């Protein structure tokens, strides 16, 4: 729901063919097979530079610069900047920090549209707080939809790192609610 005012554009569509691990893996293999020492690719905000291990000029290890947020799209930037708004921005941010910090940070996402409540009633404490260990059966929040309060379970085991949504906030389908780590 996301008013249209502020938008963060994260378009991952177009250069994706190159910016996937598989693609880069293939390039690595091809570089090795073909004795290529270095690859340096740049497009707009994207630049990929790959230097072979025993390569003289660059002593640095294989560097992969991931795309910045910003339109990588080759299509209309106006229209490809369409979707991501509040929630997606959050999502993008978290995925980014996820990627940066630790690969074992995961997300608990909203399984439905509705209003998020972190506590069973206003005067008691939250279901979970950062640092809490949860199991798949742990209720982490309520989502109110059509006057019904639905208990949302963690569906996974781990430790709550961060609560991403404030009490009483409307959430979209699949919107990240919690960061969790092993």
């Amino acid at each position: 729901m996301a008013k249209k005012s502020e938008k963060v554009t994260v378009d991952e569509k177009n250069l994706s063919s190159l910016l996937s691990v598989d693609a880069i893996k293939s390039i690595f293999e091809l570089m090795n097979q073909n004795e290529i020492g270095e690859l340096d690719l740049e497009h707009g905000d994207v630049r990929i530079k790959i230097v072979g291990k025993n390569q003289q000029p660059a002593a640095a290890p294989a560097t992969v610069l991931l795309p910045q947020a910003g339109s990588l799209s080759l299509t209309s930037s106006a229209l490809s900047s369409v979707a991501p708004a509040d929630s997606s921005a959050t999502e993008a941010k978290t995925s980014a920090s996820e990627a940066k910090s630790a690969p074992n940070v995961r997300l608990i996402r909203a399984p439905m549209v509705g209003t998020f409540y972190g506590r069973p009633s206003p005067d008691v404490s939250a279901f979970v707080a950062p640092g809490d260990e949860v199991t798949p059966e742990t209720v982490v929040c309520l989502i109110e939809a059509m006057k019904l309060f639905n208990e949302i379970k963690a569906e996974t085991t781990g430790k709550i790192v961060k609560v991403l949504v404030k009490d009483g906030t409307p959430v979209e389908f699949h919107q990240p609610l919690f960061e969790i780590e092993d």
Partner: protein
Amino acid sequence: MIRKVLIANRGEVALRIIRACKEQGIRTVAVYSEADEDSVPVKFADEHVCIGPAPASQSYLNIQQIISAAEITDSDAIHPGYGFLAENAGFAELCAKCNIKFIGPDANAIRHMGDKATAKQTMRAAGVPCIPGSDGVCETLADAATVADECGYPVIVKASAGGGGKGMRLAQDRAELESAYNMARMEAQKAFGDGSVYVEKYVLNPKHVEVQIIADQFGNVVALGERDCSLQRRHQKLLEESPCVVLDEETRQKMYAAAIKAAKAVNYTSVGTVEFLYSSQTKEFYFMEMNTRIQVEHPVTEEVTGIDLMSEMLHVASGLALPFRQEDIKQSGHAIECRINAEDPERGFCPSPGKITTYYMPGGIGVRVDSHCYQGYVIPPYYDSMIAKLIIHAPTRKECVRRALRALDEFYIEGIATTLPFYRNVLMSKPFLRGTFGTGFLEEFLVD
């Protein structure tokens, strides 16, 4: 007055609704599946809510998610568009219960017209002409013969439980009726485990003619002209036009009167379409069904009447009285709509989703394009294949066809297969140019 409309749909109709709302200062909420994140309606709506994954059953048909989205965005109305939940009486009812205005007729009218047998009975009772035939099952051959004599040959014997052409047999005269009756019963028994059949007059290669109506909450019902939708492939309309060239003025007025009668019989409000079969031979028309929603082809009527149907639909939903009466409706010129689908006419109209690498729209006088596409858009494989409606308006049918051909020549969509070349062929064919073709024309044309 409606302040904020949630659009429970996608694609071009979602965009159509957004445009009408914007022009009236009504705020809009687009709901979308994960597959439609990059779609134009999501961009152009004031707000948007993701309601589920790509499959329609989990998003655009997911009533709970949609109602929740309306609640969290504080929308006071839901527009269902066409398809998906547009003719779901339960959804309309639930909206009412949740104090959200369903933009369409009330649940009773939807339910009434949704059940074809009930609809036909109501129409008969209201004096709307229906296809002559048995009121129910013909238990014996004698019964069938009596009915056939009453409505005149040729007749068709149909399985009550039927569908898909099974248990359906044509009889040109009394002699053929016996075998037709027996064969149909046998087939019906085999196919559906139920041998009951009924008999109906058979209309050969009829015209599909429909009347657009609009009704307000004060009992005013106005007919906004007819549309000829006879160009069909497997019961899918591909091209619609208005007016229907084979109707004489007397029949046309009778048809409008019947459509208004049909709407009044179910206390209809909002826009709706009453579909008729029309026989050019006998100049008779018969009620088929009523579509209780805005239709894909509504722009054809907008072009010839100058009335913005989507806008009037919103007005009526807001409780306003119609601003015109039947005598105010003036039709001018001719309009044709071509539904451009992402389908390959060379390969049996096989769907062709994928990325649009070139998108160049025709323009200029008399050309309207209603489409949610753009260069670079990826058509998802989950939904309807219609990607654009090309709507042409001109003073006469002849000029309209020429303009349509001009516009089709200007329309470039690359990266996927579309039905554009198909329309170029059809519009130059003699039966189309004559305009007298019936619903059977296209199947023959495609074989040639």
